[in-house]
């Protein structure tokens, strides 16, 4: 194991050093990885020069194939070759309504109700595991290209992803062994790449139609601040649905011509879906597309689809994107004249009738000067580079919002909204509840996400129970439930009975997600069987954490330790620093963890003082200005 270099306590930290950070666009159809090299955000290619990695995973007996090779095998091995797995992330079996048209063997997880798994020849695979396999392939690509281990990654998610889908994505990244710096909304990432590239200021709309998701985000760009004013979308609408319309049309044609039409095999379904996708892409530059193939029962498919037919087949899909767009405009309180530009993102926006619809809606020609397939990854790389600390300029700040309202179930199956959609992150809100029966000692809390009034129409995120409420008359207890949504858009909930102080704290693990234990087990399994490997890995992780903290504290002390702390406070922190430094030379990972916690604890007051000092500093400029007046 390589020894970590730690500078002597009290000495200034090591000189600035470039850390390896990447942005990953984990797409429905294709995935990409990008990084910032000599100030430029660039997509990393594989050894064949491909930028796009098809988000396709094929499971063989003892091998996992990801990307082009897997994609090539999808018709011959449909059951074990998973495409568009993103559509299943954070979803329950019941959410997948078009299962009949998807050639996989869906099963429900034996131990957790609702959790969806796919039966492959390599065993049962959850969407999180399949996504992790795509992420691992990108990790390998990036580490090969950059020549070292990644310090951190930014992974993008559709802005309209709910908590369950976000959590699933983060779990997948952890499973792939990635250090996730931030989950970033795809349209926001696109805005960063676009805005910085064009030095834009003003209000911009990002219209992002990917393979399986649709997002609309309205942002105000001003001096490096990207402020999301409103976001909306549909996390189950994308280019795949356009393919599917063609597929259904072809089936209808064939059925009407064949007297004795036999049901399609899984391979036929995959073949026709692939032909449909190719026809869609062909129609971007041509007036008609020919769909020609032979089904396994010998029937010949030979159909010609014109642009006009395609447009009318998919007209209502296009209008399904305009309804969220209108809602976002309303939520932002803007009219068409306020919009400085409309940026198209996602491969599906190549379809001419999408472009026309967007242009007609906003009464201006959309901007397409960045590759709609790459712009999200490019933006994510820029953010990763800033977060990891490679860019010292303090000139990029992303203020994102919650896409969906968060609420609690109240009497009668109604939702009490606690955090409205489009609230800027991070945000916390508290809501007081009371008991409805005399002597009631427990209370069930049901957290939901969505805009509808009835619990049944919203997505259930979590249920938990607050116990030990002291018996009181009905209505006397005061239960304060606090929702906190962090910068990743992930929720945690705390409930506290005010008169007794009984507290219940949960990080919302969505009903359809993996439990912390499951993740830990999977991670341990993937570390390899040897006990010594696990121990080495744990030591390494503990040392990396400790190292990171030591660096942070040293930098903080160097910056304003002398001005903010008394000598004895500095001495205490210094003692903890040195103790941890010594521990890091040893091999006791548990002791290093404790030392890290102790140092963290010893610096809480310092952290608070630093934060106040920086707040003072931030607003000091304004005081000077007013003095000058």
């Amino acid at each position, binding site marked *: 194991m390589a020894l970590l270099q730690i500078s002597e306590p009290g000495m200034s930290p090591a000189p600035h050093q470039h850390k390896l950070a990447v942005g990953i666009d984990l797409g429905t159809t294709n995935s990409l990885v990008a990084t910032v090299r000599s100030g430029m955000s660039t997509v990393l290619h594989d050894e064949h020069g491909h930028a796009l990695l098809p988000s396709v995973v094929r499971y063989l007996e003892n091998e996992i194939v990801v990307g082009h090779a897997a994609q090539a095998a999808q018709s011959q091995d449909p059951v074990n070759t998973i495409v568009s797995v993103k559509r299943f992330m954070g979803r329950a079996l019941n959410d997948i309504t078009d299962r009949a048209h998807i050639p996989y063997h869906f099963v429900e997880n034996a131990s957790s109700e609702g959790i969806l798994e796919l039966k492959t020849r390599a065993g049962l695979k959850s969407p999180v595991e399949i996504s992790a396999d795509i992420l691992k392939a990108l990790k390998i690509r990036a580490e090969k290209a950059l020549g070292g281990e990644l310090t*951190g990654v930014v992974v993008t998610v559709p802005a309209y992803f709910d908590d369950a889908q976000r959590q699933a994505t983060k779990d997948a990244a952890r499973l792939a062994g990635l250090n996730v*710096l*931030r989950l970033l909304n795809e349209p926001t990432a696109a805005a960063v790449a676009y805005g910085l590239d064009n030095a834009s200021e003003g209000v911009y709309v990002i219209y992002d139609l990917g393979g399986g998701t649709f997002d609309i985000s309205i942002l105000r760009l*001003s001096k490096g*601040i990207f402020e999301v004013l409103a976001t909306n979308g549909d996390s189950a609408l994308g280019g795949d649905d356009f393919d599917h319309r063609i597929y259904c049309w072809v089936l209808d044609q064939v059925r009407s011509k064949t007297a004795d039409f036999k049901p399609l095999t899984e391979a036929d379904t995959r073949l026709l879906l692939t032909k449909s996708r190719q026809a869609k892409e062909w129609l971007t530059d041509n007036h008609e597309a020919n769909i020609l193939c032979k089904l396994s029962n010998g029937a010949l498919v030979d159909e010609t689809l014109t642009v006009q037919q395609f447009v009318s087949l998919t007209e209502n899909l296009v209008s399904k994107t305009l*309804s969220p767009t*209108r*809602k976002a405009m*309303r939520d932002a309180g803007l009219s068409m004249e306020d919009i400085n530009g409309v940026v198209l993102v996602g491969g599906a926006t190549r379809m001419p009738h999408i472009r026309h619809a967007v242009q007609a809606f906003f009464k201006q020609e959309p901007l397409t000067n960045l590759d709609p397939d790459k712009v999200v990854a490019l933006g994510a790389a820029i953010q990763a580079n*800033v*977060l*990891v*600390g490679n860019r010292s300029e*303090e000139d990029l*700040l*992303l*203020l994102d919002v919650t896409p969906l309202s968060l609420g609690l179930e109240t009497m009668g199956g109604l939702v009490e909204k606690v955090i409205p959609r489009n*609230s*800027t*992150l*991070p*945000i*916390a*809100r508290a809501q007081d509840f009371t008991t409805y029966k005399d002597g009631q000692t427990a209370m069930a809390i049901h957290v939901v996400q969505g805009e509808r009034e009835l619990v049944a129409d919203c997505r259930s995120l979590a249920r938990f129970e607050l116990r030990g409420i002291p018996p009181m008359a009905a209505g006397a207890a005061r239960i304060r439930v606090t929702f*906190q949504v*962090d*910068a990743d858009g992930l929720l945690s909930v705390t409930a506290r009975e005010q008169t007794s102080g009984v507290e219940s704290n949960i990080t919302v693990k969505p009903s359809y997600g993996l439990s912390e234990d499951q993740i830990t087990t999977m991670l341990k399994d993937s570390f390899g069987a040897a006990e010594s490997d696990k121990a080495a890995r744990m030591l390494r992780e503990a040392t990396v954490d400790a190292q*990171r*903290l030591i*660096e*942070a*504290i040293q930098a*903080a002390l160097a910056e304003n330790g002398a001005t903010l702390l008394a000598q004895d406070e500095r001495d205490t922190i210094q003692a903890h620093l040195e103790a941890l430094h010594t521990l890091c030379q040893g091999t006791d990972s548990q002791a290093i963890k404790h030392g890290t916690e102790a*140092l*963290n*604890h010893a*610096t*809480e007051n*310092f*952290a*608070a003082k*630093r*934060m106040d000092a*920086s*707040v003072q*500093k*931030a*607003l000091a*400029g*304004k*005081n000077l200005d007013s003095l000058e007046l």
Partner: protein
Amino acid sequence: MQNYFALFQLPQQFNIELAVLDSNYRKLLAEVHPDKFVNASSAERMQSMQKATLANEAYQILKQPTSRARYLLQLAGIETEEENNTAMPADFLMAQMEWREAIDDAKFAKDIAALDALLIDMRAQANILQQQVAEEITQAPTQAAMTVRKLRFIDKVSEDVNQLIAQLED
């Protein structure tokens, strides 16, 4: 408890310069946002989360006139009692009923333009009440509490109209 006006270095009064609020909010978030503390100690990350959350909350409250007025009254020790005090002057109630009827008519006729016109109408009414509350807060706080309740009423109706428009547009 941090005073929200002091947080953004604004005078504690109803009429504030929104441009100053905006710019100080951004300056503040640029310092305390969790993105600036990804590599910091967990103590600092916790601080950053709390401060950024506070800044967002304070900004929302000061940005919206109704919540700004309510907050000013709270600072003066006056609760606006919007949940349990629903007594309203007769003329205000009449105006409300007329709005509700107009909304129902527009809903039936699926007339989005009429709903948009109603929103403009309500905004004008709210503007008058906002000017009124600015004076009442210092001179007649109890009156101001009533005006906040009226503003809340209008906010709610506007919200309903917006939802209705969204439904009709679908």
